[in-house]
């Protein structure tokens, strides 16, 4: 037995977190928000188009870092949430590997990216594939799934990077394929920094 993602997706897809009077959603120990995907895509592309050369590289690193920090703190909140503990943890039989499988099932259920683990070498490397993600709605002529890059590195940090909050930035993630570039799927490779 291992984590069955369809069970997780079916149970969590119906959860509808409610916003507070400021429009923010207090969940998983952090504040999350709910904005249209094309808002994020447009903001990302305009920022990138405005930056050239070295500035563009810095900007790309900053976009990944935003997702990395967000994914680390939110991801930690998610795996310690009541929802995760009651839905995913009873199916965990392979330790951190299964927790990661559950994390990607949650990631899918809540619409961030339909994604999962293609390969995992515990504590060393992880390959993620995504067949549907919001950055894939655009065709910018470059890889732009910065969110999945940052969050994937963050999830591996949580699993193998040492005790929270000291494990942040242990791992890094590169995008090797992207639907936004005409590939069949997005592929993301997490390795040690």
């Amino acid at each position: 037995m291992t984590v069955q993602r369809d069970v997780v997706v079916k149970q969590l897809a119906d959860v509808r977190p409610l916003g507070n009077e400021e429009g923010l959603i207090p969940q998983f120990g952090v504040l999350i928000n709910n904005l249209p995907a094309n808002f994020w895509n447009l903001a990302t592309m305009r920022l990138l188009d405005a930056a050239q050369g070295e500035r563009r590289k810095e900007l790309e690193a900053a976009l990944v870092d935003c997702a990395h920090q967000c994914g680390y703190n939110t991801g930690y909140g998610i795996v310690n949430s009541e929802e995760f503990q009651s839905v995913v943890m009873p199916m965990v039989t392979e330790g951190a590997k299964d927790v990661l499988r559950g994390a990607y099932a949650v990631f899918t259920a809540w619409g961030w990216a339909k994604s999962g683990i293609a390969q995992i070498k515990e504590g060393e490397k992880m390959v993620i594939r995504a067949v549907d993600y919001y950055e894939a709605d655009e065709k910018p002529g470059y890889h732009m799934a910065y969110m999945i890059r940052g969050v994937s590195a963050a999830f591996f940090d949580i699993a193998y990077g040492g005790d929270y909050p000291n494990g942040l930035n242990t791992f890094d993630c590169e995008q090797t394929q992207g639907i936004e570039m005409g590939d069949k799927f997005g592929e993301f490779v997490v390795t040690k920094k």
Partner: protein
Amino acid sequence: MAAESSTEVLQEILNVPGIKAIVVVGRDGFVIETAGSLGTMDLDTLGASVAMLLNGAESMGAEMQLSAFNTLTLEAANAMIMCTPVGDALLVILAPDSKTLGMIRLQIKKTIPRLASFF
């Protein structure tokens, strides 16, 4: 020379006469990659079913004190499905019948080590 991709290896397997489609499924039921003609099949449901099958086979194997399974073959009137572990995932071969089962097995045996480096 560029390194080969899992897509290329799957296409190579697909060249064996009789194979209609190939699906690589993670142990959690995530459909990692597909090749060939899957028609209107719901891949999420297929992935979940394969994961359940794998769990069932492993539970049965553990109960009967068998070592890890190598191949699981399901034959129906109009289909043959063969499942083989590849790395941490499962390679699922779909064929309309078992006429070329021998060739399929041979090709799988030759290709698994290459595919295992991706999953």
